[in-house]
């Protein structure tokens, strides 16, 4: 092992962290074999949202830019994935080339191109958006995402193509969205259904892999000089500029990274739902990562992930009780109020305070 990896892993500072990560990893890998079908897919969905919220938080908690339009990346990537699965893959004849493994190839292709489309969208929209700051930044991202919602909901692309004589006037299929079926995979004799709603173990493990890679990549970004610069911009953009940082350019790059990882999460989400609707691009969908991040705590790397877990499982608990479900916005709002009033950095901050309190008592 080079660069003293072993020494670094075993250093007292890191030991707890390594043990913690290993414990979480073991629990997450073992979970689908213990949980039923419904809980496994809920966990898969939660993991995807953890990645989505963390990607969002790169802009919000770390760079100080509140984007209110992150659903547009889910939409860009999601519609791309749906198009690839529905039409592009059959047209390319992937099935005949790769046989039983075809669906895995389609999956990887959709994931890569979906993420790339989200990144591409972020390049353009990011460039225009980072010209503004604070509430104006939130408003411009909201406007762009609503414009994209209108485009997919009214199927403007389809009408435009039809005007050019291509296709029958449908592309995003308006308010019905795009829905697809994912079939069987036969990988070297290992047969499984890619997205088996009844028992989604295979897709869960793939999700875990993708989310783990995504989270690690974001962790590296945040703990690099690039990430430190982001925090400098958040703390004081004037001072950052005085230090010679091109804050606009840096924010733009951060926007693109955030958009790309949101797109990655979006691609996984759309696979899990086997379809995408225009409402996935609506502003309420953009609000989901905001809510998760605020609940979890924006000033810690794992805050948004903790928020995603809190959000999804609290929602699940509320669904179990018809009375709470009927007023679920109220139940949720009440929780949010508690978090905002009594925790200075969301649930994650609360957990940390509790830990400090406990260790103080022990001393």
């Amino acid at each position: 092992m080079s660069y003293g990896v072993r020494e670094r892993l075993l250093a007292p500072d890191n030991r707890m962290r390594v043990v913690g990560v290993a414990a979480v990893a073991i629990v997450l890998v073992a979970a689908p074999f213990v949980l039923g079908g419904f809980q496994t897919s809920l966990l898969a969905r939660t993991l995807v949202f953890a990645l989505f919220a963390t990607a969002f938080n790169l802009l919000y908690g770390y760079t100080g830019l509140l984007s209110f339009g992150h659903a547009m990346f889910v939409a860009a990537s999601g519609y791309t994935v749906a198009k690839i699965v529905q039409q592009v893959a059959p047209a390319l004849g992937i099935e005949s080339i790769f046989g039983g493994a075809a669906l895995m190839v389609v999956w990887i292709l959709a994931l890569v191109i979906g993420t790339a489309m989200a990144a591409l969208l972020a390049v353009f929209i990011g460039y225009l958006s980072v010209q503004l700051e604070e509430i104006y930044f939130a408003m411009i991202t909201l406007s762009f995402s609503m414009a994209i919602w209108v485009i997919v909901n009214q199927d403007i692309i389809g009408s435009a193509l039809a005007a050019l004589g291509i296709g029958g006037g449908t592309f995003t299929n308006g308010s019905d969205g795009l829905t697809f079926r994912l079939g069987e995979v036969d990988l070297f004799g290992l047969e499984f259904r890619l997205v088996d709603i009844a028992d989604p173990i295979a897709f869960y493990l793939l999700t875990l892999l993708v989310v783990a890679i995504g989270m690690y990549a974001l962790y590296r970004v945040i703990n690099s000089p690039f990430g430190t610069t982001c925090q400098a911009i958040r703390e004081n953009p004037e001072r950052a500029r005085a230090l010679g940082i091109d804050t606009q350019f840096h924010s733009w790059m951060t926007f693109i990274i955030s958009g790309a990882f949101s797109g990655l999460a979006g691609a996984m989400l759309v696979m899990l739902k086997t379809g995408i609707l225009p409402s996935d691009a609506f502003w309420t969908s953009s609000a989901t990562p905001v809510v998760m991040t605020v609940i979890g705590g924006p000033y810690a790397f794992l805050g948004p992930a903790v928020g995603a877990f809190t959000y999804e499982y609290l929602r699940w608990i509320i669904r179990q009780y018809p009375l709470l479900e009927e007023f679920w916005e109220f139940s949720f709002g009440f929780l949010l109020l508690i978090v905002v009033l009594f925790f200075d950095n969301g649930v994650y901050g609360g957990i940390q305070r509790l830990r400090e309190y406990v260790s103080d008592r022990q001393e």
Partner: protein
Amino acid sequence: MSDDRTQQDSTSSDGTSRGLNRRHFLAAAGTGATAAVAGCTGLDGGGGSDTIKIGGVYLLSGIAQALGTSSANAAEVAVKQINENGGINGKDIEIEVRDHGEDPQAQIRSLAQEFNADVMIGLTSSGVTLASAPTIESLGVPFTLTDIGTPYITEPDTESYGNYFESDSGRAAFTPNMFRTNSNTSHMTYAIAKYVADNYGESRVANMGPDYAYGQQCWDYFKAYSEGLGMNHEYVTSEFPSLGASDMTPQINSVLSADPDLLFTSFWAGDATTFISQAAEQGLFEEVDDVFDTIGADPTVYEALGDTTPEGIHMSGWYWPTAYDNENNQAFLDAYREEFQDDDTTPSIPGFTGGSTYAAIYMYKKAIEAAGGTNPEDVISELEGITIDNDPRGQTTIKEDTHQATAPCVIGETSFDADVPYDGAGLVNTQTYTLTRERSLELLDGSGLGPGL
């Protein structure tokens, strides 16, 4: 992994005279936005083997609340009746109905996998139905649609109409474990096209409908059926106010200025109420010879409109309480009245989804008894071709190849003389229409639209 430095910063105030620093601004903006959302997402915003479990998913909140609630009510009336008469194979039925919520597929999965529903009923949105079909198919539970318009979901001919799940223009989305007891958009638009052909002949026709797939689909099917019936109507204008619009006056004005003889509309629930009250205000009903509506004929709509409903226009639905003269319908109405006559919030007559939902429960009873249990495959094969004896709309049959019931739809004339238990209009001179797949294929030939029958 937390960011300790910034945390300390946030707790120690910087003490400068700036009232609002960046961090506080961001926190406030994020929280404010979050709070706003918590209040707004509502529209898109809920086993043992000794009972038979039925899971239901309907829109119980927002724009279609009245509609979903009346379906749930009809289902519960049927369940109560069956349980009082010995249940199914001696077992009681347990029913749980939940709201679509903001994630209908999660509700469907939860009912199938956590509540362990043996069979399911539901859905109040065609879009949700099409998007959930692969989920429902994977779950394998028999699922009966009682409130769904889109013909696609019962159209198996992927060769002629394209597979819905494999293209953006496919129109055949048949799913093996899904069935439908209500008459669909194909029936409804045929009935209106036929009524117009028989009573008015070729006319200047305008359209208004909600701005989403359903509104567009109704208009497309109406035009296709009219053409099939040999009517060369002149289509003067077509307006689509957004779903749940609070102001339809611009669209009503365009219709008025196009000067049509007849107006075709596809509004339902809250939209039907908004349209009728605003059109009445602008005098639309005096300017045209007749107005038609596909599925707006519901007691909750007429009750909300009070004395505003214009008399003599033609509205249709999947069921109207006084349109059928048979003992099953009478039994349904009696049971319904008994259940809800003391309830101030619910009309004591079933809504337009009542007949199809009530029928679905009795259909399941018959299929489970015939299958000797709740094994999904056995129940599904019993459902294919089953005749629903207790259907309040008269006997109907589930077609083996399409899974669509041979259900009639009803057109009636609005009137204040109708026998209704609330202050408002109802339907009189009702007529029922049925349509076969063969006849539909003939009429739709060349339009590219599938019968879904």
